[in-house]
């Protein structure tokens, strides 16, 4: 099983859910398709959806909800 990294294209704050008190887009261990939204990056008060970009199984998030991220930082890994 090879691991594929999903990186944030933007710096900002990472959110796993579409809104507070709502389940996350993806739970750890979920499978993802390339167009699936896996989180939101808030950059300067604007919200940009982050899609997986790859197909894979057993997604594992490396960044917690509401954590600051840098551009290029690995957000999650999937098993391709």
């Amino acid at each position, binding site marked *: 099983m090879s691991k594929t990294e999903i990186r944030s294209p933007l710096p900002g704050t990472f959110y796993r859910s579409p809104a507070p008190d709502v389940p996350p887009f993806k739970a750890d261990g979920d499978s993802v398709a390339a167009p699936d939204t896996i989180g939101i990056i808030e*950059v300067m008060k604007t919200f940009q959806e982050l899609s997986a970009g790859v197909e894979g199984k057993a997604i594992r998030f490396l960044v917690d909800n509401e954590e600051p991220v840098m551009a290029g930082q690995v957000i999650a890994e999937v098993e391709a």
Partner: protein
Amino acid sequence: MTIRSLLIANRGEIAVRIIKAAKALGIRTVQIYSAADVDMLAVKLADEAVEVGPPAARKSYLNIEAVVAAAKAAGVDAVHPGYGFLSENANFADAVEAAGLTFIGPKGDAIRLLGDKVAAREVAARAGVPTVPGSAGRIDGLEEATAVAERTGYPVMIKAAAGGGGRGIRVANNRADLERHFPQASAEALAAFGDGGLYLEKVITRARHVEVQILGDGENFIHCYERECSLQRRRQKVWEEAPSFLLPQDAREKLCASAVALAREVSYRGAGTVEYLYDDETGEFYFIEVNTRIQVEHPVTEMITGIDLVAEMIRIAGGAKLSIAQERVKIAGHAVECRINVEDPVRGFLPTPGRIDRLVVPAGEGVRFDTMLYEGYAIPPFYDSLVGKLIVHAENRDACLDRLARALADLTIVGPPTTVGLHQALAGDPAVKGGAFHTRFLEQWLETEFAGETGRTAEVA
């Protein structure tokens, strides 16, 4: 009670502006900062700086307990809230006062009253200020809605009484529209806010956004004339002017007098702004809301009147009487402010935080650049994208636009994409030169003129 020291409960360019005003008054400054803002210009300029929390604004700049604790620990006399963040939070104003400190702004109760849209409309009506025609309050059903719409004339805006953020708003251009949209709007309001109550407002189709700067000390109230803020994108002002070009003198006098009447009605203390919609076709104006703080675009008023608004609000908070009588406030020339944001207009205004590799600031007579930038500064991605304001003043509007074009050409920001190019295009645009604006002008212009010029697709992020 003279203020000898103050804490800046804000960040960015307005923090720098407040520090400059305080220094000129001989006041000691203490700057708060989040963990992401340790390199901020205001931190370098202030006499002291204190960290109040992590990068997330909710845990730092919006954290009332942390900010008040920092103010108490720093031993300051007063707190200046700037704009945004906690500046119009009545609970914050109360908490500052409860800690035995002076809040530089109105009392919490005044902020509360004017912050409530329905209550503020009632205050305006009591002061004889015209409000947007519509229903007096909530509407009981479609029958009443139809009667109101017939009275005000179509188009009308159906708004959720408990609404906000643009949700629960529908526009009806005729009776059939109203009959179709009214139940939908009610259902949407109920789902979104747990309250299906609606009210109706006439749509002012070709409106200008004109606002009046007021100052009050609780007993004396003056206006410092108006600002023209019609160039907006997504309800965010992009370019502001003072005075409002092509506003008839009699309309100006009525508008400014009504703002002073409103200030008197609530015994206003501090600097504030009364916002209006102005209908070019009828010459009518309508009250929108009062902002109980200093505004981003305050410099254009300072440039044409010579009044230092930030210094004046600090003095008033310290118990001083207004230092300027109304008859001494005069309009001299014309001023324009361009908001400089780190955003890429060609990519749907995507925010572009990053490092400033090189900065050349225009200077000279009638040119002012209020900013937080310096060479080598890395703009954090957690806050607003506004990084500077270029303000230009000249004897008349034409001369001002010429001077603006030269100043924009001299303004060099190397690093992240900015909106400087957008302002250059606006400054040279014939419609802008002619003063033909209304609140939807800029969005239409971006889709047509600007898109054609840059070859960008008309997508919006």
